């Protein structure tokens, strides 16, 4: 018996800002930064959006594709590094908003950008062990970069939800493997507004080491090479890292293109690889094989080998696709972006 994906849904806010807008304010060549990162724009959440609203929209999009009784979802986990509450889980709001409450378990996860993939693995365990019929795993973020920092050009907002189970699978997860170490490449201390990072240390010893090592483990476990896959999607902190590691592993642009959304919407952190996976599932055909390799700073990688099934033709894939959401873009200037992102010190409301 395999566990796998029963349904999926994503959400990307409409607002965008371009690197040149950010650079202009901080005295940097924003266009050059954008080229260096291979990012043309990043998504920005509206003032009435946060990880909770994004998670709910993604979860509802997933539920809208299939006729699933929400009461059969026994667990909901939301992974993020920008939960609106430090204490009071995003997952409980999602549970109410999709009608899964109250007979179920829930919790929020944190593992930088791989909190969502960790949630998927957890749900696999719960459903394979027959503890629950279905679990829902969500990765969603509205992460911020410090003003003027390199991360400000890429840190964006978005999320995706996956219902995981062992029947009615649109894609089986035939193999999953993880690689985890204590590596301080990027972190945020409790109470700090913005994360910190180790500059170039975030490259070879962090992203590349974990993604590369985990990928080799996955190839070995599955007995495959890059050529065996129709699609590949990686965690995408910028538009350069995933392409470089992908090529190193033997993948071609044509395999990676569909899932490489960072170029248009930036790095949605816990949402990144999952929203990329949604874009792939929007167009995948039965029999397609997908290589998905997440990464979270701190550090670790979760890898998945998926095969799309005939069931994918039975779910509703009309309506808004990830491509549609990427195209539905309203560009902001830095002032409006700063206002929406709470970077302007406001007076405390009187009441």
């Amino acid at each position, binding site marked *: 018996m395999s566990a796998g994906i029963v349904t999926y849904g994503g*959400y990307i806010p409409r607002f965008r800002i371009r690197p040149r807008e950010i650079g202009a304010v901080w005295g940097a060549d924003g266009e050059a930064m954008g080229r260096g990162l291979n990012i043309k724009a990043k998504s920005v959440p509206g003032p*009435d959006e946060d990880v909770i609203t994004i998670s709910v929209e993604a979860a509802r999009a997933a539920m*809208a*594709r299939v006729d699933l009784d929400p009461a059969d979802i026994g667990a909901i986990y939301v992974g993020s590094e920008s939960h*609106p509450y430090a204490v009071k889980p995003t997952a409980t*709001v999602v549970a109410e908003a999709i009608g899964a409450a109250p007979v179920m378990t829930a919790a929020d996860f944190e593992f930088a950008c791989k909190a969502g993939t960790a949630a998927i693995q957890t749900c696999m365990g719960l459903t394979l062990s027959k503890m629950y019929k279905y679990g829902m795993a969500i990765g969603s973020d509205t992460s911020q970069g410090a003003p003027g920092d390199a991360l400000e050009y890429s840190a964006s907002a978005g999320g995706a939800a996956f219902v995981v189970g062992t029947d009615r699978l649109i894609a089986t997860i035939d193999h999953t493997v993880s690689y985890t170490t204590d590596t301080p490449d990027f972190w945020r201390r409790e109470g700090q507004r913005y994360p910190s990072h180790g500059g170039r240390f975030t490259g070879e010893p962090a992203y590349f080491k974990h993604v590369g090592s985990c990928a080799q483990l996955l190839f070995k476990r599955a007995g495959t090479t890059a050529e065996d896959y129709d699609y590949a999607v990686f965690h995408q902190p910028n538009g350069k890292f995933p392409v470089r590691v992908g090529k190193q592993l033997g993948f071609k642009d044509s395999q990676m293109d569909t899932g490489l959304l960072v170029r248009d919407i930036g790095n949605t952190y816990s949402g990144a690889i999952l929203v990329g996976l949604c874009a792939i599932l929007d167009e995948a055909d039965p029999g397609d094989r997908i290589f998905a390799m997440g990464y979270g700073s701190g550090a670790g990688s979760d890898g998945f080998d998926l095969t799309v099934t005939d069931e994918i033709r039975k779910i509703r*894939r009309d*309506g808004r696709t990830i491509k549609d959401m990427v195209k539905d873009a309203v560009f902001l200037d830095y002032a409006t972006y700063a206002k929406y992102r709470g970077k302007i010190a406001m007076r405390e*409301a009187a009441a």
Partner: protein
Amino acid sequence: MAIPRFWREIPSRYNLIGTKCGNCGQVDFPPREVCPECGRRSIGNMERFRLKGTGKVVTYAVIHDAPAQFEMQKPYVLAIIETDEGVRLTSQVIDVAPEDVRIDMRVQAVFRKLGQEGRAGVIHYGYKFRPVTSEERGGAASAPRAT
């Protein structure tokens, strides 16, 4: 706003739960104990009913003078929406420029922050509406599904 007061309305604010009169079939939102049409014949006969979340704009205004907690969003569009079930409710229309809003525009419900009790307080969520995109007119949308 007091914590229990908002918590109590979560089913209606998150999931558009109203009532349907078992006597005459009229749908009301928010839920009512007594049907305005049937009066006492409806008591005990009101069933939980979830709105699909699709409808049209009946009228709207663009709010410029806003209470403190809507400071970030002004000017914003306030509208009366008539849902496909014939229910009318008041909400914001978002994801559209105010000058592009029209009476009879098709809209659908989405989940957004309504406000919060200050930076340390509880956050309130609920429905707002956005225009239905052309891609959605035929297919699966993220509106709460009727159960």
